[in-house]
């Protein structure tokens, strides 16, 4: 260090010491406070696979509706949430999960086996077996959900 010819006065030293301690206390409270406020954003979103049911229930070539209830945790409140999706398999090897929520305004679509189409009761949206739009107001095909099969049990990933 270079010798300084400027002498630090008692007052300057005290000011610096008070400032340093204040900053220290400010940081000790301020940083946890920021972490506390942004806590919901820090939480990792649980990547949860929802167990739908046994693949043996899927009728080959026809969309089968699976329904299950899952527990959802928001804060300290646990809610029951119903998850449902159509599962379609043509070959018994590959499974596609098709959301039963109409892409128009969110009504639940119904599979009418005789016509081989999904119908939405709200505004007459019609979808094909693969979820593609045939007629009506829906702007895009029914959503596909990611699937996996483990030991004969089908899972979908909650979107």
């Amino acid at each position, binding site marked *: 260090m270079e010798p300084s010819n400027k002498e630090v006065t008692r007052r300057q030293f005290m000011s610096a010491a008070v400032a340093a301690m204040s900053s220290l206390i400010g940081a000790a409270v301020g940083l*946890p406070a920021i972490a*506390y406020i942004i806590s919901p954003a820090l939480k990792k979103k649980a990547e949860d696979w929802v167990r739908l049911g046994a693949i043996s229930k899927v009728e080959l070539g026809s969309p089968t509706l699976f329904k299950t209830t899952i527990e959802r945790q928001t804060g300290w*409140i646990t809610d029951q949430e119903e998850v449902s999706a159509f599962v379609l398999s043509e070959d018994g090897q590959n499974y596609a999960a098709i959301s039963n929520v109409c892409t128009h305004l969110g009504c639940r679509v119904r599979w009418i086996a005789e016509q081989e189409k999904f119908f939405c009761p709200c505004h007459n949206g019609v979808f094909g077996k693969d979820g593609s739009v045939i007629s009506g107001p829906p702007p895009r095909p029914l959503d596909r959900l990611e699937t996996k099969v483990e030991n004969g049990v089908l899972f979908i990933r909650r979107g």
Partner: protein
Amino acid sequence: MTTRLGDWLDERFDWRRVWAAIFLRKIPHVNWLYTLGSATLFVAGLQIVTGILLTIYYVPTPDHAYDSVVYITTQVTAGWFIRGLHHWGASAMVILTVLHLLRTFFYGAYKYPREVTWLTGVLLLLVVVGFGFTGYLLPWDQKAYWATTVGTEIAGVAPGIGPWIIRVARGGEELSALTLARFFGAHVWVLPAALLALLSIHLYLIIRIGITAAPGRDE
């Protein structure tokens, strides 16, 4: 840079004079006991900050109060720390306020011309005790519930108006959602307003009149 900004602001607000009046006061020769008031003020500030933070997650209803407190303590990042500061700060407030009062009393610092400073100080002690009493119920656990049951019961033995005090304090005959709601309202609105009002007068007088010197042997 900061000097220029300071000058710019000073030209408009004359803040340096205010700063000097508050922080560059001449003070008599005093000892460490004279820091008790400042210590109380510091903890009060900490209580305000941590208290505001707690209201972000806390819900004052019987079906959510306890769970939200547990959530703060176990799930929220640094929640245990913020709540811990508020919890221990509450005890520190009472202890520091009383010590500060004792110092003032034994040094005779309440005498002319500081009677009003003393008076507001005594009222501030009541406010601090009020904070402690109302805040104790908010976690809504067994300890909180029964402490408030007993506390309001004690107030209820006052001759004549006792039963009336109980109903006002509890918002009814029994401890209920009404009790929790009014204790919460008192804790976060009524008492803070009273604290800030009294504290403003208290601090103004300290700056305006100045503080006493420690009394000497020959006085």
